[in-house]
């Protein structure tokens, strides 16, 4: 490994890279449990809400190679306190289609899958209720939103200000159900050694999984070990425990062998969560110069009957723009759907599509450049909390992005640029995501020979944490990268929260920095600054959020600029180029950070143009439950993407001045695409995704407008 002059910020190559390109880095199922592996396959409910009336496993049990068939009748009882869909096989009740109602354990995956078809199940069932609408009579206000945000916020007199505004926008935007779909399917491999459980698992934080396994099986800390050094993507679906971990451990216990449960891609559409669909009404009021006087953002979304997941969709509207009168609300409907969960930037991702589309509509109403409109509404302080920003450089992102993209001189009129059969447009949208820090512990061992071991239960789900944490440790200890041996992804390591909420590097990195400071202080005080021959071991921690979090509003910001081309005859949408600029505090690794921003932005393009899980209203299931039908962006869908960030020094967020970059890229990206689509065609698509059929649905309006 090369030594670089300045370790923090350098584009150090991924230390896990060589193993990953060859395919030798061991993901969950690829680890060696030390004995042959049995396979689990599951029988899933074919109704959404009802009860099992007959379940006959005898034919499956009789098949050669089948070791056990677990059903609600014979499954071991799990501990009290499991919520949502974690009490696997504990009852005859069915709460969503695809729920596990029986599980086969067999010598091979082929036998297990074949035996699933031999389990006979009958149900009594209600009609499925899976359709969200804004006028359902059963909408309710949750006590609070995900991550502890307030359900509603009201400042001033929004309705009065809207009535008095010179210009208004009143529009409703919809985003569909989306599924995380990491390419590594959720997989859990479990082995019991008497009363100790080892699980090799795909997750975003082993400690989270350990807690639920302790509850499920009545275990003490120390009796469960979850090992997850490499994870094949997650995007939120692997943040929390799902039925797979519980069932794998249960099955292994029953058959007394190592058991793996690898979900199928189809099962990823019901067993591991999804992003709720949203219906969002935005009302904006502004004076003739484009200064906002009122912002209203009312959100309707769904949750399941067995969990309450209240996506914090309107929360970006609480921070993005200045306006004296403002209101945000969230209402939920409980439907017969699988439990929703977090998906990359929960809240900001759907919310920013609505808000940033509405800002584009307002700019058009006013005849003001949409970049300029945003700059005119830049708030000096957090507009709802009324505290200063720890740092905020949205305007710099907008100006820098405009210059890099070549925005100057843009014709404001929609639907007037053509190149052969292509209609061409450009669009802009802002990005934002909170900067937070969580509790994390760390242990640093200095060996007498000058090597250092840094241990913390962080996760690398593709973020680059293996490399960035090594850089942080080397910098904090004042040694070369090669002197650091990092250990992450194992619940036997010191506690850390999972990789989520873009808090990973901020939290784990801060714990390493604080522990390393203590190491150096101890070396100075006791050993004259030298590492003693028999080494040192120092434990440390970061206790939780930044002590300045109450006094400052902490957020990363960004701006996306995209060009869109729409085929005049087919409605096909292409995205030949984009510039995406961020202000996200200090950047630890310029190489992996670029990939984080790029990946987030590109997933936003995917959301804009492709992603939609379609529920059958009659039968209640997701009809397009695989990667041939649930489209995600592929290589040909992404053009040339210019990723850039501005220098930003933030002394308040954490020890490293970093803001977290895993999620901000997706926020606002879909709005930038939709705004460019409108600029190209004159058609405002307010319901994602922007598929070609919507071009023909809306085309009559286009003709009329011309």
């Amino acid at each position, binding site marked *: 490994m090369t030594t670089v002059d300045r370790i923090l910020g350098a584009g150090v190559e991924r230390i896990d890279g060589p193993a990953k390109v060859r395919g030798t880095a061991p993901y969950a199922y690829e680890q060696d449990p030390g004995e042959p592996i049995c396979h689990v396959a599951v029988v899933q409910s074919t109704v959404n809400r009802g009860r099992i009336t007959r379940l006959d496993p005898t034919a499956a049990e009789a098949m050669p190679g089948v070791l056990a068939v677990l059903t609600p009748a014979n499954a071991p009882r799990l501990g009290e306190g499991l919520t949502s869909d974690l009490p696997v096989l504990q009852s005859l009740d069915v709460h969503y289609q695809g729920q596990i109602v029986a599980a086969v354990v067999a010598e091979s995956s*082929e036998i297990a899958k074949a035996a699933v078809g031999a389990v006979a199940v009958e149900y009594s069932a209600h009609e499925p209720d899976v359709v969200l609408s804004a006028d359902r009579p059963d909408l309710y206000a949750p006590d609070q939103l995900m991550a502890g945000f307030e359900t509603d916020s009201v400042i001033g007199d929004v309705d009065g200000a809207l009535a008095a505004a010179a210009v208004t926008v009143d529009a409703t935007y919809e985003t569909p159900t989306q599924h995380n779909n990491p390419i590594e399917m959720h997989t859990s491999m479990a082995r019991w050694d008497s009363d100790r459980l080892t699980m090799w698992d795909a997750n975003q934080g082993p400690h989270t999984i350990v807690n639920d396994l302790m509850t499920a099986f009545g275990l003490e800390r120390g009796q469960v070990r979850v090992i997850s050094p490499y994870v094949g993507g997650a995007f939120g679906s692997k943040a929390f425990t799902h039925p797979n971990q519980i069932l794998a451990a249960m099955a292994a216990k029953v058959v007394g062998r190592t058991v793996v449960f690898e979900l199928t891609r189809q099962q990823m559409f019901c067993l591991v969560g999804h992003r709720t669909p949203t219906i969002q009404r935005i009302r904006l009021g502004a004076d003739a110069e484009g200064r906002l006087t009122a912002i209203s953002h009312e959100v309707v979304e769904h949750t399941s009957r067995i969990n309450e997941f209240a996506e914090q969709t309107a929360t970006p509207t609480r921070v993005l723009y200045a306006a004296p009168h403002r209101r945000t609300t969230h209402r939920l409907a409980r439907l017969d759907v699988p439990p929703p969960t977090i998906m990359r930037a929960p809240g900001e991702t759907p919310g920013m599509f609505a808000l940033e589309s509405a800002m584009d509509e307002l700019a058009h109403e006013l005849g003001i450049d949409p970049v300029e409109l945003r700059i005119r509404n830049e708030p000096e302080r957090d507009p709802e909390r009324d505290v200063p920003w720890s740092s905020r450089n949205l305007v710099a992102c907008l100006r820098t992005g405009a210059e890099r993209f070549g925005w100057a001189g843009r014709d404001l009129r929609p639907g007037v640029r053509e190149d052969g059969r292509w209609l061409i447009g450009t669009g802009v949208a802002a990005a934002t995501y909170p900067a937070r820090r969580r509790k994390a512990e760390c242990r640093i061992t200095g060996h007498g020979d000058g090597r250092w071991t840094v241990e913390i239960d962080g996760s690398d789900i593709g973020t680059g944490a293996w490399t960035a944490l090594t850089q942080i440790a080397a910098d904090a200890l004042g040694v070369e990268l090669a002197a650091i041996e990092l250990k992450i992804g194992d619940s036997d390591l010191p506690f850390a929260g999972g990789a989520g909420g873009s808090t990973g590097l901020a939290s784990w990195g801060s714990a390493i920095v604080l522990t390393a400071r203590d190491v150096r202080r101890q070396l100075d005080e006791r050993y004259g600054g030298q590492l003693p021959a028999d080494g040192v071991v120092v434990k440390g921690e970061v206790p939780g959020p930044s002590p300045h979090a109450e006094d400052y509003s902490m957020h990363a910001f960004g701006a996306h600029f995209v060009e869109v081309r729409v085929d005049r005859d087919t409605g096909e949408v292409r995205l030949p180029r984009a510039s995406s600029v961020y202000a996200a505090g200090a950047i630890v690794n310029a190489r992996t950070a670029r990939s984080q921003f*790029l990946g987030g932005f590109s997933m936003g393009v995917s959301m804009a143009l492709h992603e939609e899980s379609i529920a059958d209203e009659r039968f209640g299931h997701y009809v397009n439950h695989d990667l041939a039908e649930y489209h995600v962006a*592929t290589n040909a869908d992404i053009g040339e993407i210019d990723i850039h960030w501005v220098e930003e020094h933030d002394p308040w967020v954490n020890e490293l001045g970093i803001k977290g970059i895993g999620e901000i890229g997706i926020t606002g990206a879909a709005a930038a695409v939709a705004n460019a689509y409108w600029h190209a065609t004159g058609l405002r698509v307010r319901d994602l995704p922007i598929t070609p059929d919507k071009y023909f649905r809306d085309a009559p309006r286009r003709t009329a407008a011309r």
Partner: protein
Amino acid sequence: MDTEITLLVDGERHPLVVDTRTTLLDALRERLRITSPKKGCDHGQCGACTVLVDGRRVNSCLVLAVTVDDAEVTTSDGLAAEGEHPLHRAFLDNDAFQCGYCTPGQVCSAAGVLAEAKAGWPSTVTDDLTAEDVDLTDDEIRDRMSGNLCRCAAYAHIVPAVAAVAEAEGVRR
């Protein structure tokens, strides 16, 4: 029903008995524990399981193991017996991945793309279908690599990675 076959993987012979329902991917991953090819969908929709069979790229989840008895199977790990293959280096240079799970499939697919270009095979974006030489432009790479999904969306880094090797190997002007 079980059948005896021999799989030749990355230069090594593996005699084994497989259930006739066993795919090449499951034979590799679950029987031989050769886990360089990944399972992302098991239905030929994501490309994570891409390997080379007698030099051509295939989705190994769509190939029954019994049909490739004695064929030469190459995984990303087998592209270079020792050291790194130029594609490995190019993917690292361009940070053309994040989680790494689709990456061995991307690398094998890229090796297939280079071989196809050298053989003069056009793609759906090739202007002149009769041209003898293929020029792997960015658009050609994007199109030819689109059978391999990357949910981390490293696409804009995969293109220059493949382009770098294509240039070195004379199939990009």
